Each structure stands twice: as C-alpha cells, then as structure tokens.
C-alpha cells in the first residue's frame, strides 16, 4: 500500500514542501530503501526508524519498503524525516488506518532508538510553512514546540514519543493541542553587563551611546585590561528591545542554525556574537553544501563583536564588506544559492600596537614603529572606512578613578536615551526607508544635515588639519547628526560637530 505524507526541507530561511511517499509492497524481497537525494543522515534513518518502531511495541513489516522523498533533485539532510517515514510505514503496513489527521498534517522530527522524538532544528520555520500553505496541524518534537507556537492559526502537537503519536492518530488518547501563547513582548532585560559595571571610561561609554543611538559601527582601541570587552558586552543592553517582527526574524535564523535553547519560543534579547579570530570566511559569512547561517547572520539585528580585530585573517575581514553594505549575505554553493539577513552593528576592539602598551601612561611599549605600522596596516582600508566611530579606551589608573564624582549612568537610562534618539530618526527617515543615521547615503546627508556657517567653518578647518577624505567628511556629519539627535536638536551645531571630531579615525 502506498501512503503520502508531508514534511519540510529548509533551503536557507525558506521552506520547501517535501512529499514523503512510503510504499510497503505486497511482493518482493524484504528490504528498506530511501531514494530522493537523501544525505547520509537520511540514509541512516532506516536503522533509527526500524528500531524505534520495534521498541515502541509495534511491528516493523518484513516486506519490501520503498521511501521516496520528492522533489527528487532537492538534496535532503538531517533527521527530521524520521517521523514521517515511521508514520508512513505504520500506515502503509496497516497498523494505523489512514485518516485526514495523517495526510493533512506536517510531520517533522528525529527519532531516537527508543521511539522518543528528539529536538530538531528549524521547527519555527515548519510552523511558518504550515501557516503559509494552510496546513492546520503540525507534529513536532516536544522540546522545540514552543518555537512553532508563536505562529497563530495552526495547531501544534508536541510529540514526546512515537507511541503517543500513534495513540493520537488512532484516536485513543489525543495529544493536547497547543495554541499560540501571547508572549510578553520585547522585554529583553537580561544583560550580562551593565554599563555602570565598567569603571571610568566616560568617553568610551559616550561613544557606545552614540553608536547605539545612530546604529554606527564602533572601533575601540586600547591596552589590554582597559575594559574593552566588558564595554562591548554591555552594548546589547543599551540597544532598543526587539519588536515582535524583529524577534521573529532573529528566531528564524537561530532555529535554522539549531542554536535555540530548547523550550525557547521567541528570542527577545538582541544577539551578541563574538567569534574567535581563528574563524574562517565560511564561518563568518555562512557556508556548507546546504549553507547554514554564519556569524554575520547570527548577529542579525544585534552586535557582531570582533575582539582583537587585527588578528583576524584579512580574507575574513574583507568578506564583511558586502554584508555591511547590503544588510544581507548571499552564499552560493554548488547545491544551493541562499540569502540570509545580516544587518548588524559591528563592534571591534584592537590594541594600539602588537604589545598593547603604546601610549600607556606607565608601561613602555616594546614595539618598534615599524611593527606598529605593520600592525595597523592590517586593519587599514575598506573595513575601517565602514566604521564611523573610533574611540580610545585608555588604561585606567585606579587611583585616579576616585578623584571625581564620575556619573555612573546605568544601561537602563542610557537605553532610554537611545530609544528616544531612534524615534527621532525613524520619524525623519519615514519617507526614505531608512532607520538610523548610519544608513544615510551622501544625498541624505546633504538633505537632512543642515549646517550653519560656523559649523561649516569648523568642519572645513578640521578637514584641512586632519587631512580628511570625502568619506571621512560625511562620516563626521553623520556622527554629529546623531549627537544632535541625542541632544534633541533638529539642527547640527558647531558643538555637536566639535564633539564628533573626538571620534574620528586615528588609524
């Protein structure tokens, strides 16, 4: 008898229906074949399914079994087809009678040998797929079910093991129907570090505020131990919370990558990714024959932190250019052409020189000027050009810290300022399809950043003194615009411009 069930394959962030056709033949030698460009993990489903059925107290038919995964030319991998194959065999061998519950639903999940259903990546996408294709019911692993439950209009069955599923389909003990829960929207107050945890570094904190408010990329340079990493980790906490559509976007990426902690429904905190500098280009951009999202996509709508940026291979830094420009990364492989969103705030930290102590008030730098030049040249060029804000994070002399009152703004108050400034920008750019000052092109800068004559004079003087490039010129105006927005000023004044000059590139 032939049975057809529906499952899902993921290509990037889009889902493709996969027909799982199971035939248990009346004649022929006993055997079990899976066809349809099945990867190694799918091939091995034979052993898992066979054992799981037996261990669930049912009979694995000693007949010729053929499973076809259609479309035939789409490569399929992973354990998610275990569940539809197992159910298909049970129906085709007559142990379960075929019903609408079986043919009009999506089955998705990996089986363990005991018949338990294991967590499987990509469940959120299954829910979204079901809604789009008007499929009412989906059967997914229990641990991942909360992911799918954020989608409304579908019924999610959380399956613990094969036996429960069979009991449900037979109608004896139905599984409980899970409906969408209204999750508390965008709280995301879980932050590792609060800004007030970092001693001193008022200027660096100010730069972080500007970066968060205007969506600017930020480069911090300073000796080891000055607090660069701690500051970096505090950045997600001052970014505005994710709104629901954003949270859904981020969760989709994490669901496909299989990085959602089990039991999570939506991610409410902005992602913070800090890859090690040993990372490959495929690791940062995304890769594999069925390409998985890389660090740039995992940092989508959050922060990509490159600690010791000068230690990253040049090829990796260069590969950041296109996603930084477009907010999307396209990965082309033999088997697939995939795009992942990758709109992130780049936060980079570097030492001022190889030994780290150049400009340190107490410790001598042991690098020669040549070494320093060589070190800095590794960073130079296109990637630095895309970083608006540069700030020095000097060594903190602890005895000097107690000297002044030193305001200690907490992340919460800083975040309120950020949210206010973002609202101003959103309003201003409503007609342009931009969100933040950092996204302004030159024509927008000319249109939205009016400068009075005094500010113009100051800017001209700065360009001559520091020998600024055209790009550097526009960068300064963009930062001054954000500073003005933070101050609630519609005009960019010379004070704002003067402060912006503090954050120009020194590399």
């Amino acid at each position, binding site marked *: 008898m032939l049975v057809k069930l529906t499952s899902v394959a993921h290509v990037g962030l889009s889902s493709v229906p996969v027909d799982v056709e199971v035939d248990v033949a009346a004649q022929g030698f006993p055997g079990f074949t899976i066809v349809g460009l099945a990867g190694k993990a799918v091939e091995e489903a034979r052993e898992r399914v066979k054992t799981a059925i037996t261990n669930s107290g049912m009979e694995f038919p000693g007949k010729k079994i053929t499973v076809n995964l259609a479309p035939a030319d789409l490569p399929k991998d992973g354990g998610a087809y275990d569940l539809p194959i197992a159910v298909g065999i049970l129906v085709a061998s007559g142990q379960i009678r075929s019903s609408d519950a079986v043919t009009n639903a999506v089955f998705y999940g990996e089986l363990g040998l005991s018949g338990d259903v294991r967590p499987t990546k990509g469940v959120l996408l299954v829910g979204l797929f079901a809604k789009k294709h008007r499929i009412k019911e989906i059967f997914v692993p229990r641990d991942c079910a909360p992911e799918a439950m954020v989608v409304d209009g579908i019924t999610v069955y959380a399956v613990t093991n094969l036996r429960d599923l069979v009991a449900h389909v037979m109608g004896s003990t139905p599984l409980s129907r899970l409906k969408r829960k209204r999750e508390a929207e965008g709280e995301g107050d879980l932050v590792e570090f609060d800004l007030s945890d970092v001693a001193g570094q*008022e200027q660096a904190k100010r730069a972080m505020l500007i970066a968060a408010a205007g969506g600017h990329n930020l480069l911090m340079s*300073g000796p080891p131990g000055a607090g660069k990493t701690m500051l970096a980790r505090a950045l997600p906490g001052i970014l505005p919370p994710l709104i629901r559509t954003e949270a859904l976007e981020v969760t989709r990426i994490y669901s496909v990558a299989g990085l959602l902690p089990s039991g999570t429904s939506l991610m409410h905190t902005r992602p913070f990714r800090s890859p090690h500098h040993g990372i490959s280009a495929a690791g940062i951009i995304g890769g594999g024959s069925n390409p998985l999202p890389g660090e740039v996509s995992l940092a989508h709508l959050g922060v990509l932190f490159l600690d010791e940026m000068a230690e990253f291979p040049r090829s990796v830094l260069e590969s950041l250019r296109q996603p930084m420009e477009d907010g999307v990364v396209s990965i082309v492989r033999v088997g697939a052409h995939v795009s992942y969103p990758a709109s992130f705030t780049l936060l980079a930290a570097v030492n001022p020189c190889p030994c780290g102590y150049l400009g340190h008030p107490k410790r001598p730098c042991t690098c020669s*000027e*040549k070494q320093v030049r060589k070190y800095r040249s590794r960073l130079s060029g296109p990637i630095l050009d895309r970083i608006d804000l540069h700030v*020095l994070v000097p060594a903190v002399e602890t005895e*000097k810290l107690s*000297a*002044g009152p030193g305001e200690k703004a907490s992340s919460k108050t800083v975040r309120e300022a950020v949210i206010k400034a973002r609202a101003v920008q959103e309003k201003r750019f409503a007609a342009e399809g931009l969100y933040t000052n950092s996204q302004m092109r030159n024509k927008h800068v000319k249109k939205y950043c009016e400068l009075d004559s005094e500010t113009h004079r100051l800017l001209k*003087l700065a360009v001559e003194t520091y020998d600024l490039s055209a790009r550097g010129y526009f960068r300064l105006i963009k930062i001054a615009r954000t500073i003005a927005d933070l101050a609630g000023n519609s005009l960019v004044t010379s004070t704002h411009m003067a402060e912006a000059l*503090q954050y120009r590139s020194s590399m």
Partner: protein
Amino acid sequence: MANIAPPIPRLRDLTNTPKQLYYRGTWDNTLFVKCAAVVGSRRMTQYGRMVVEKLVPQLVEEGYTIVSGFMYGVDQAAHRECLAAGGRTIAVLGWGINWKGLDSADKKLMADIEKTGLVLSEWEEQKPLLWTFPQRNRIVAAVSHDVFVVEAAAKSGALITAAIATKLKRPVWAVPGPVTSKTSEGTNRLIANGFARMWLPKRDGVKKEGSTDNPIIKLLESESMNASEIARKLGEPIDKVGAQLSLLVLSGDIIEREGSFYVS
C-alpha cells in the same frame, strides 16, 4: 651615487677617525658650525615624545643643526621635529649609505632630510649589525657641540654616545624623567652621577601662567590627561568636554597624542 665627504675638522678629535665618510644631500659647511646631538631610546614613551617636541624646536631656534642616528624612537622623532620646526638636520646612519633595507616611511624621512641637510655614513654597503651602531655613535658625538640625551634605559646605546662625548669634552645634557620609568633610568643616572647636566625647558611660562581662564588648559598645564580623566576632574559631562577639547586642539592650544592631551 654616494659621494665622498670632504673632511670634517671636528672628527679629528677622535682617536679612531673614520677613514672616509659617504654622504647624500647637498654638502654645506655651515651645517657643521653649531651642532646638537639629540639621542635616546628606541622605545620612546609618550613622555619622550613630549620632551622632543619641546627640546628640538628650542634648539632649532638657537641656531643648532640637529644631529641624530636615524634609528626609530627618539632619533627619528628628533629628525622629524627638527624638519617640522624648519631646522636642518644630519642623520648619521648605523649602516651603509647604499643599504637597501629601508621601508617606505624611512625612505620618505631620509629624502626630506636630504633636501636641506645631510645623511652620513662611514660605510657604503654595510648591513646594520650589533657593532655598527656604537661605531656610528662616535661620529654623532664628535660632530656635535652639545649632546642631549632624551630617555635612555640603563643599557641604552645613547649612553655610549654620551660617554664618547664626555671623553671628547663635549657638554652632555640629560633630560630627567620619572624615577619609576625604566626608559629614564639611564638619563637620570647620568644626572645623578654628574656625567651630564640636567636639561630643563626654557621658562616661557611667564606668558602662559595665569594668562588663561580655560579650566581645561589649566588642568593640562600640570599633567597630560585623557578626555575621560579631564571630565572626571572637572566634574563636567563628557560630551561637553569632548567638544571643547576638539576646539582647543584645532586652535593649537593643546596637542592630542594617542588619546592623551597636553598643552602645546
């Protein structure tokens, strides 16, 4: 392309006068009328840079030609500062005049020196080796009328120059540094042991002291600081302080280097 230099009378003071000297640039005997050697550590600190910025323009103003060894650190800073102050400078190389191991930044500085000053070496093709630098130092000392040591650690090559200068009866000046700093150990010891006179900048303070109401400049007159420290000391918000610092730097009242500000 290297020319052989005419004899320099002051080099005869040496017991081991170099057999010949090669030079690049335009030979001008007036260069040797009044020479000051400015030498020091390769590992120059922020403080050393500030000292060179004070010392060299003052010497240039007094009509000195600045002589140094073209090594990175204090030497090159002295050459650069001299050219920036409109002075003429002589670089005595610790390697052959035709040696091809220089990088582009070195080549550029050398070309700038040659325009008004000289590049000297007693070798044609010699590679830089451990023994070539002290050899070169005797020429630096002998050519100069005064020798200034800026930042030298306990075993710095600059101390060799100072020792030769003492032997040749050239006045040696050392710039004092913090007693806690390793790179000032050598210079401080020269002063302590009486081998060198202590150099202090001219007091142009009459003009500056009390002439400014700007609290930032007042603060920086005593000590160099970074922006966060200034904000903390003054109890002012960092955005306001940052804006003022930018304006002061642009107007030339203060200088910023690697994040720390000081009065020019």
